[in-house]
């Protein structure tokens, strides 16, 4: 210390013993505060799980949910409406396009979503699965697919339906051709635009 200097006003100055003590108290306070923060952080991590919408996957979940909701709304086997999945797919052939179904999908889905619709089916005579695309828009690589399994009976399908089970197969089984079950998977492929 320089000769003639006044005692510094800093509380942590080591100029006299009282100031030294206050400095130690501050240090102790700091350590206690640090421990307190660590304890609070520890209990926070242990006791809570915060689900954040920050992840990009949440967006995929939401898009998929939109698709599933749309398919569930449009699936109604008891309805006579033309835009249900069952009625639209039952009438589907190479010349019939399910315009009403697609219009309803356009209405239900948000404007920022684009989609392709296709039907997966099992060809019972060849024992192979096939895909029947209804729309064929070019899609980006990151799409989300919502699916729904529907069951129709062979008699509900139009005569030239791509999903029709031939009579000779049901004859082997000795069951009614019109009552034969046809399992189809409706695939709604969604992406953001």
């Amino acid at each position: 210390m320089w000769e003639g200097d006044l005692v510094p006003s800093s509380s942590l100055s080591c100029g006299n013993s009282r100031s030294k003590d206050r400095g130690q108290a501050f240090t102790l306070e700091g350590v206690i505060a640090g421990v307190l923060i660590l304890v609070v952080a520890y209990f926070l991590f242990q006791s809570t799980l915060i689900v954040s919408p920050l992840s990009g996957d949440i967006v995929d979940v939401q898009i998929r949910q939109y698709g599933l909701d749309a398919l569930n709304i449009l699936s109604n086997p008891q309805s006579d409406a033309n835009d249900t999945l069952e009625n639209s797919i039952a009438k589907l052939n190479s010349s019939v396009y399910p315009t009403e179904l697609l219009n309803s999908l356009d209405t239900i889905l948000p404007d920022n979503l684009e989609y392709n619709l296709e039907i997966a089916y099992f060809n019972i005579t060849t024992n192979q699965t096939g895909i029947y695309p209804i729309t064929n828009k070019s899609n980006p690589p990151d799409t989300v697919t919502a699916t729904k399994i529907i069951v129709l009976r062979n008699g509900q399908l139009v005569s030239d339906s791509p999903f029709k089970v031939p009579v000779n197969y049901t004859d082997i089984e000795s069951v009614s051709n019109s009552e034969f079950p046809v399992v189809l998977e409706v695939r709604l492929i969604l992406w953001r635009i």
Partner: protein
Amino acid sequence: MKSMSTKKFTDDENGQILIIMALLISVLLAGLSLLYTQNLLAGTESALTQLNFPKNEIRDLNRIVEEQLVYYAINNPENFLTYVRELDKQITMMYALHGAYADIDVYDVKTNINGDITSFSVKIIFSNAVVDYEHTRQIVI
């Protein structure tokens, strides 16, 4: 005579507080960044769980049992098991497209003296990389 820099080193002890506060703030920042990371991980994990968990597939199986099997039991009791077998075959193929196994087993079919089905038991099985689901139900017509 001491230089100014020497005076600072020996007399100015605010440095203690600065170091401790810097330590505290860095611990706090580290804690917050950990919380943020945990948050992100939890969000991703829960989103993936929702995406992968096959609740709709299982729901579809239950719906098919309630609607189609009941329909065939009422309207085609004599060929009920044949239709169920064909239905099961196609369902298994459809679910196999997604790397999953699904099966509908009907057993214990009870009929009355007229040959009408009064009840049957059905075991619904679904299995994929995430879930093994098995559920037995008795359907009374």
